[in-house]
């Protein structure tokens, strides 16, 4: 059952003299109980997408088109109060800088009480009991509820943020770069925890990251974003083992891996300026495989196999391109 769907969503930012199209037409269907990863480099619009779902864009940002449907109901058209009731209760978010998201002058438990009494309609006592349960769930001693945020280490704060997101039994958790800036061991623990929570509570998780290795071992589905659009989506294993879009091929080349000895290859060039009108494929300036049509026509995201989508004119040449993409010289053709 799909219960969160994003339909042709466009989120734009009004700049002084132009419109910055941070998210420019994204379709995404999220099924219950899935962990879906959204990867892409900075500036590809992944954080904006999350902000759009949570409706917390910066003041000059607005939803230009499209819709976000939760259980079939449009979240954009629904009343403010109803939306507020859904957010956090049904859809919770672990913010990017969750280290700083706790107010330093309050005890940690106060944050839980605030959320649960204001939004969950629980009494203060119930809230404290629930907070204790959640702390145990994320592996922190209950006693530490009465501590202040600065008494927690970075990894602990991240867990507190997760516990806080869980406190109203949400159905969906959106985690924006939940492990960036954490040490590997802590990162590992946080990922394991997300994995366990999913299997325990049938939680749906949207995991936003720039790091392929973070999603590789946790996610079921993957969407690769580039310059405000999804360029490839589908089952994670399929995408990582056999990418169809040159950008996805490039990304998997660019990561060092303990288990591989391949030479790393970078994708030269940079993301196009989204405040300008885009012509042709957005990746064309960095793509070593571009042909004439790529410069003139923007490829549509099409389903060319059951559950596998890619937006590339040369999607059917993938066998050949995957081979070529392993060569360093191919990518060097595009000058930085």
């Amino acid at each position, binding site marked *: 059952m799909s219960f969160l769907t994003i339909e042709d969503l466009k989120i734009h930012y009004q700049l002084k003299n132009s419109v910055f199209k941070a998210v420019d037409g994204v379709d995404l269907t999220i099924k219950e109980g899935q962990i879906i990863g959204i990867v892409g480099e900075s500036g590809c619009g992944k954080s904006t997408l999350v902000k759009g779902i949570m409706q917390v864009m910066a003041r000059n940002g607005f939803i230009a088109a499209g819709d976000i449907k939760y259980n079939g109901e449009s979240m954009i058209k629904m009343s403010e109060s109803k939306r507020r009731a859904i957010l956090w209760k049904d859809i919770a978010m672990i913010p990017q800088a969750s280290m700083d998201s706790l107010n330093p002058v309050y005890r940690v438990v106060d944050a839980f009480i605030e959320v649960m009494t204001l939004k969950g309609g629980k009494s203060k006592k119930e809230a404290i009991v629930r907070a204790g349960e959640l702390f145990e769930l994320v592996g922190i001693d209950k006693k530490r509820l009465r501590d202040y945020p600065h008494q927690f280490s970075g990894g602990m704060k991240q867990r507190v943020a997760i516990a806080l997101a869980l406190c109203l039994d949400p159905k969906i958790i959106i985690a924006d770069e939940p492990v960036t800036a954490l040490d590997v*061991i802590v990162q590992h*623990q946080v*990922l394991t925890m997300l994995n366990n929570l999913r299997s325990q509570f049938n939680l749906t998780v949207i995991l936003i990251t720039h790091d392929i290795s973070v999603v590789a*071992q946790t996610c*079921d589905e993957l969407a690769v974003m580039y310059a405000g659009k999804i360029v490839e989506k589908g089952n994670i294993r399929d995408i990582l083992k056999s990418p169809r879009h040159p950008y996805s091929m490039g990304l998997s080349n660019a990561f060092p891996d303990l288990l591989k000895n391949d030479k*790393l290859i*970078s994708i030269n060039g940079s993301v196009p300026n989204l405040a300008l009108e885009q012509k042709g494929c957005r990746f064309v300036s960095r793509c070593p495989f571009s042909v004439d049509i790529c410069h003139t026509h923007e490829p549509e995201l099409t389903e060319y196999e059951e559950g596998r989508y890619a937006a590339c004119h040369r999607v059917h040449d993938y066998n050949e391109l995957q081979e070529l993409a392993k060569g360093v010289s191919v990518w060097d053709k595009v000058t930085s």
Partner: protein
Amino acid sequence: MGQSDFLIEVEDLKKWFYPKQSLIGRRKAPLRAVDGISFSIKKGTSIGIAGESGCGKTTTGKLLLKLYDATEGSFKFDGVEMNSGMTKQELKDFRRKAQLMFQNPYEALNPRYTIYQSLQEPLIIHKYGTKEVRRKKIINMLEKVRLTPVESYLHKFPHQLSGGQLQRVVLARSLVVDPLFLVADEPVSMLDVSVRAGVLNLMREVTSTMGLTTVYISHDLSLIKYLCEETVIMYLGSIVEKGPTDKILFSPMHPYTMALISAVPSSDPDVELKELNINNSITSADNIPDGCKFQDRCPYAQEICFKQEPLLQKTKNDHFVACHFSEEIGGKQYENRLCSTRSYG
């Protein structure tokens, strides 16, 4: 040039930070950021220092560059002892030979200097050649880090360049004075994934063509594997394991190293995410217990670990480990993570 094969020789180096004592209350213990480390680096090779944040790896890097004075211990650079009794000229000389590459390229360059000015500065400081010679040197250096065409970069300001380009400038700046030694502290962690590889490859290439001795500091073992011949694993200011990178990564002997390695996420979706075999609690560097520093996180800790600090000892497969039970743990417990594959449900 000194006689020694080693460019860097460090013995029992310590750096303790003394907190401000308050007028009343208990005396605060010093923070033992680096607590007696020894290693040496052969000329022209690269070594990686890995560990969690707070393990003292950055402090070690700063000690090697004399940005901190050591509390105790000996640090020899090219066979010459680098103690606090150096003259100003000797220090300046050392500053030319030993360079640092910064983590954050957006910060490392003066925002009000053009790229040309930034690169020229170290040359001016070290009175390198005439203006003409300097200019040629700068252009040559920018070509080496592949910022071509050079003329389009010379007069730009840092904010006009992308992160990857900036990090190339930062690299060029540290290499423009022909140093012998380079410390790179998390050289790509601030960069976007798609350009990291480019900078890493460049560093690998340039340091080897210039014959540099390099220290890479990173929490990312896959990066160290990519760049370094030798690896040092640090935990709370001490070295727990050191040796050739391959040996460390594929047959680790210390439980901490094992945990670090199995925590590194892989980009292979078939590898399973395993539970780590260590405890969560983290001892802080200002309150270090007697005995082994890793005792309260170690699943194998026994009585002796709480009493006696293990020394760094050579093991059978050519590397050094500081653990009382390394032989038993090392052979038996470590499973190659390749074997466990993920099940899809």
